[in-house]
């Protein structure tokens, strides 16, 4: 087990290095010369060369990469062009907003998908199964940002129950998830985020539970006189390691995939930040945000794998 954990952690290092290479490359593939944007219209070629040297852009790419990597390692992600503030601070602030609603969404989706999946698998082919499968297909197929728009139209425009966009009437400084007036702002983003993972997890749960219920040991349990509820508990416990892995993966996808939903609801998270970076072509901000999100995704996967090896008896042995 410890050997597995050690190996898994060591294997993460080259992946993270690869992530930094891709993030570094993002700046390289961006069209246009970053120096030109900084120069005044009257600047000469010497001015350009001086500025280039000042930013280290006259160095070979490899050198530039390692200089940049060194800065990243101490938490310096550069300055955002549009706001002229350090990218790191801006991203971290936004990241908290993103991870909180992502966590709530994924837990919500997980709980509902377990219930749906068990019901659908227990009564395969029934009306409930078909309805649940339809919901799952809808969740997988729906563009999440469009779902956001629909939610806004329905709950904000038509019914005026929930605020359409933003994060708290009182401004985000005093935002609290435990105050109803504030939490109202988070409800629609959470629902819009939760539906796609709900669809995927429901399908997976349904097929895993159905498979377990078909195995011989379930018949043995019934023969031993266990109630149906106890039988289902056995089946659910059996798929737990898989379910936890699924949960972690979906959390990772939500953190990276919230860009569209956050844009729809102007939720001030990393997604919204990415949208701002794209609109203003703020490449340092884009790069910094992507780097933080991808790193988070890799680390979440690492934690999930380790957690899975802890709870899965089959992995424990090796």
């Amino acid at each position, binding site marked *: 087990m410890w*050997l597995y954990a*050690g*190996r898994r952690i*060591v294997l993460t290092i080259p992946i993270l290095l690869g992530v930094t290479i891709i993030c570094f490359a993002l700046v390289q593939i961006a069209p246009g010369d970053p120096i030109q944007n900084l120069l005044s219209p009257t600047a000469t070629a010497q001015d350009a060369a001086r500025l280039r040297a000042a930013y280290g852009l006259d160095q070979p790419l490899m050198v530039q990469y390692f200089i940049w990597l060194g800065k990243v390692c101490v938490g310096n992600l550069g300055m955002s062009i549009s706001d002229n503030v350090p990218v790191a601070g801006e991203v971290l602030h936004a990241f908290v907003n993103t991870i909180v609603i992502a966590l709530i969404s994924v837990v919500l989706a997980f709980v509902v998908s377990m219930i749906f999946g068990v019901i659908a698998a227990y009564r395969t082919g029934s009306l409930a199964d078909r309805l649940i499968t339809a919901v799952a297909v809808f969740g997988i197929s729906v563009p999440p940002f469009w779902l956001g728009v629909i939610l806004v139209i329905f709950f904000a425009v038509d019914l005026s129950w929930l605020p359409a966009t933003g994060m708290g009437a009182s401004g985000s400084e005093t935002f609290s998830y435990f105050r109803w007036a504030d939490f109202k702002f988070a409800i629609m983003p959470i629902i819009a985020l939760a539906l796609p993972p709900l669809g995927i997890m429901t399908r997976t749960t349904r097929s895993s539970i159905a498979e377990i219920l078909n195995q011989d040991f379930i018949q043995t349990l019934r023969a031993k006189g266990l109630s149906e509820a106890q039988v289902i508990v056995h089946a659910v416990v059996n798929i737990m390691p898989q379910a936890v892995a699924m949960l972690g993966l979906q959390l990772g996808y939500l953190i990276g995939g919230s860009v569209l939903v956050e844009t729809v609801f102007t939720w001030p998270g990393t997604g919204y930040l990415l949208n701002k970076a794209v609109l203003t072509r703020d490449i340092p901000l884009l790069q910094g945000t992507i780097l933080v999100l991808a790193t988070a995704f890799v680390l979440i996967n690492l934690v999930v794998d380790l957690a899975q090896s802890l709870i899965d008896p089959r992995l424990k042995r090796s």
Partner: protein
Amino acid sequence: MTDHMMTPRTAPVDPRDRGGPAQPMLIVDGMKKYFPIRAGVFNRKVAEVKAVDDVSFYVVKGETLGIVGESGCGKSTLARLLMHLIEKDAGELILDGDLVGGSTGVLLDGLRRALQMVFQDSSSSLNPRLPIEQSVAYGPKVQGASGKSAKAQARSLMEKVGLNPNLFGQRYPHELSGGQKQRVNIARALALAPRLLILDEAVSALDKSVEAQVLNLLGDIKKQLNLTYIFISHDLHVVRYISDRVMVMYLGQLVEIGPADQIYEAPKHPYTQALLACRLSMDPEARVDAAPLAGDPPSPVSPPSGCRFHTRCAFVEDVCKAKTPKLGDVLKLSADKHLAACHMVHPDSGHSRAPAHATAA
């Protein structure tokens, strides 16, 4: 290498013959294959599985050489080494007098035409997406035959193995029974007109009645096409039925080799004795109740010192743990010699049961 007493069973001279009837079909000299085991945080090589460890033997033209041993003893690895399907670590292969793979020897392509293999697992040995006629015709096509002649060849081969090409040609493997699939396998191996056929557990997965049919088919084809067989199986009855000579492998090594009758009537190596004792006798009265071979074979990663069988041998003595018993120079001795790598058969080996004077191994 001249003193081969076994008279070849097939008299007619093959035009492909190069070395004459006395030259063995195939000589295997010092074949070795170690598979690395990787583990640990950095996936370094920590050990080796000695799958085939210094195996030497030869196959006389026209004979059937049986290879037996428990699963994991290296039989199948050896077959794949002979076919050059996996790279060997050491050893030489001499095909009818020509060194295979060397700069002066026959090319791999020549080896491939002369040596073909019939695989064990009928579920994975045929391409599930290819009609069987195409599977059989593939070899000739690769060797340059036109589509038409390859097809004709495939159809005549299917006829030869007892499959009606009109009925079966366009079928897919999943539409065939195990016995039929094995017939296709044989037809495919014959498609390149080989001289030596390696049959790796070729009938092991079949029902007994179908197995008998396929064995008879193999016998007929051998006579018709003047073939030499290497027959690998864990089924001792079948090996005895089909083989002229038998070699016994244990943990990657050759422990006993000799004419089939001698091996079965008077096995010399305690491992062979144990194996034979494990057979189910046809006579219920004669069946043994106790398992003569207890437990699994030791790991080929770190085989026991001295004689590899000493951990399970009933006659183990100190000398067995200290000294590796020699089999004798298989390649220099004639084919009717019965050799065993055991201290009990070698005079003056230090084992209490060893014969006192040289009685010729």
